[in-house]
């Protein structure tokens, strides 16, 4: 036990003094000003109801699941919402596995109060058969990386996951209308949850000297701070919950100032969440449409125009290694191919069965792969890992990373093609292993096979990420 304590991370006296002194001149150690919030990055997983949020270095994942259960006796018409928080030992060396510590319980309670007790999620709509069967929604929050301010991040993750969660539709049937039939998602479209408002948690940290305070503390600042306060507000200006558990005493005027600031911040974060959820919903809808209408012809002109935009971004790629591959769709861009650097090899893609166009313009190295357009049906991903060595990830590709993650999710239908990594492809011809590998490195062979979901599109860009320390996005 003592040895375990010896392993915990402690801030040295010098570091403490440094942080406090810097705060006196309104400087924070990561370069922010006292009232600057870190950038929020929200990503969604393949399944409905899974979200991953990054706030600076803090990383939280949320998964939402639903089950049919018996309701509580005193509330026969309402479903339930339960939040389970896991402080994973991977987030911080001081998090122990097993029973949740006080801070884990406190975090769970703050989020619970914000979501459940403020009636943000409508529980009456979760009732299926009064007194017998209701939906119980379970939110699992996994804290993956502790970079400070876990409450806010976990809250945003929970909200994002709840907004994108879909529960199966059920109807009453049977002779006396008492039987419940749960429709699988293929038969009937699952329904979203009814969420009335979005309670956003904003955390402030107070420091002893001169009543200074900061918003959104990092874990260094949390180790130095004298007290903290979390205010959960929504965009309408309602206060859903305030948590100030002990710590230093703070003047009333400062508390009011914090609340006012928090309401502004809550508005910003709500906008952010809504935008992310909207773009996810659009992609989801597109995915559904593609799956159903199998013979929708692609808009070649649209494709062509989109390509033009990409041309500029590729210009700087000239001079990269000759092993870059650029699979390009055979129908479009053949005229534009000449513009692209001569060194790159152009590949022709095999069309998918549906005859829908596959459109993916990307340089075959690292995350320089650029999804093509919203109208495009399927993506195929690149092959050659050989060119990974030349991992000069251009800033361009990094900046396009953002675009990539959102567009990449642009999905294809379940018949989206995915490129099989050539080396992996031919396991059966293993006996001539080396030869296959070398062929793969010059790879012109790209194998396509259909698959559900966009996962592969995104994932392949990660192929190269192993060499790059922290890429701007890490997809699930």
């Amino acid at each position: 036990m003592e040895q375990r304590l010896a392993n915990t991370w402690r801030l040295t006296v010098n570091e403490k003094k440094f942080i406090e002194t810097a705060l006196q001149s309104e400087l924070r150690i990561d370069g922010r000003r006292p009232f600057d919030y870190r950038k929020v990055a929200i990503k969604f997983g393949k399944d409905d109801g899974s979200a991953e949020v990054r706030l600076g270095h803090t990383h939280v994942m949320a998964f939402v699941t639903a089950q049919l259960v018996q309701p509580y006796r005193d509330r026969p018409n309402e479903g339930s919402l339960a939040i389970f928080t896991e402080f994973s030992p991977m987030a911080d060396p001081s998090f122990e596995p097993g029973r949740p510590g006080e801070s884990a319980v406190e975090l769970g309670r703050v989020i619970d109060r914000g979501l459940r007790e403020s009636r943000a999620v409508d529980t009456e709509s979760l009732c299926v058969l009064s007194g017998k069967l209701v939906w119980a929604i379970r939110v699992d929050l996994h804290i993956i990386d502790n970079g400070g301010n876990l409450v806010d991040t976990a809250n945003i993750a929970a909200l994002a996951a709840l907004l994108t969660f879909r529960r199966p539709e059920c109807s009453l049937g049977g002779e006396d209308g008492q039987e419940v039939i749960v429709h699988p998602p293929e038969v009937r479209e699952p329904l979203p949850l009814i969420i009335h408002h979005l309670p956003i948690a904003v955390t402030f940290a107070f420091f002893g000297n001169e009543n200074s305070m900061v918003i959104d503390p990092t874990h260094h600042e949390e180790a130095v701070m004298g007290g903290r306060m979390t205010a959960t507000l929504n965009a309408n200006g309602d206060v859903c919950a305030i948590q100030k558990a002990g710590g230093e005493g703070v003047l009333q005027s400062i508390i009011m100032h914090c609340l006012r600031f928090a309401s502004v911040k809550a508005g910003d974060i709500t906008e952010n969440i809504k935008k992310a959820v909207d773009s996810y919903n659009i992609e989801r809808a597109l995915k559904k449409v593609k799956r159903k209408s199998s013979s929708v012809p692609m808009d070649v002109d649209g494709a062509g125009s989109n390509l033009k935009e990409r041309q500029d971004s590729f210009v700087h790629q000239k001079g990269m290694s000759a092993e870059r591959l650029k699979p390009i769709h055979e129908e479009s861009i053949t005229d534009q191919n000449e513009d692209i650097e001569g060194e790159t090899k152009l590949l022709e893609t095999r069309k998918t069965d549906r005859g829908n166009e596959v459109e993916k313009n990307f340089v075959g190295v690292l995350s320089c792969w650029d999804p093509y357009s919203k109208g495009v049906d399927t993506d195929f991903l690149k092959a050659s890992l050989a060119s990974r060595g030349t991992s000069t990830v251009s800033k361009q590709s990094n900046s396009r990373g953002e675009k990539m993650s959102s567009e990449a999710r642009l999905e294809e239908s379940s018949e989206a093609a995915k490129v099989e990594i050539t080396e992996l492809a031919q396991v059966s011809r293993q006996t001539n292993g080396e030869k296959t590998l070398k062929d793969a490195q010059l790879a012109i062979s790209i194998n396509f096979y259909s698959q559900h979901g966009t996962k592969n599109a995104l994932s392949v860009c990660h192929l190269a990420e192993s060499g790059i320390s922290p890429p701007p996005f890490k997809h699930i």
Partner: protein
Amino acid sequence: MEIDRIDERTPNQLRPLICSRNVLNRAHGSSSWSQGDTKVLAAVYGPKAGTKKNENPERACIEVIWKPKTGQSGKLEKEYEMILKRTLQSICILTINPNTTTSVIIQVVSDDGALLPCAINAACAALVDAGIPLKHLAVAVCCGLADSGDVMLDPTKLEEQKMKAFTYLVFPNSVFSVLPEGSLQVEGEPVENGIITSVTQGLMSVSFKFVQVEDYLHCIERGRAASAKMSAFLRRSLQSQLPSDTLKAG
């Protein structure tokens, strides 16, 4: 005989592999490994002082914590932890830091079949990222046996459920060395032909009296061939890490 797999792979095709290292900030080593839709995140906290009660204090000890995607940790998670711990113990050099504990934490992000092999691969990459001394790496594959007797590599969740049997196999990765070939062999066989771990589920025949069916041995052969490819991929992805990694001071 060609089997029709749902995602139109051939029986010997693996799903696309993606490996990224250094994905977490606080952990000493971290990696994310995905095979198709199965994705696992692994984090390693480097040697901490002290070992657990029942462990041998003259060796380093490995502690594995498996976090499922939803729900509480149950018996299945404990079994995975045990398998992972034993596998990693055989690849780490345990005598270098005696009386220390290295923690490996696995978080399941999504599960679409072959979860344990994915986790083993992720843990290996995370150990490399953390700089833990290893003898060699481990490469894990899943081989499934369909009712018709055909062996399929890297099944998805749906395929796993339909199969008669499947097995998770862990091989050491292929050796890449300047030493002459003979010196790296163990009892006349190359090192990478050994099996570190094998977990099977379902009925799989080893040898039948009059007809040599030997499904399990077929699986091992296919798995070994796949592991050669995977270890080439692993080597490439681990090599491209820049030498100017910032040290993580906890």
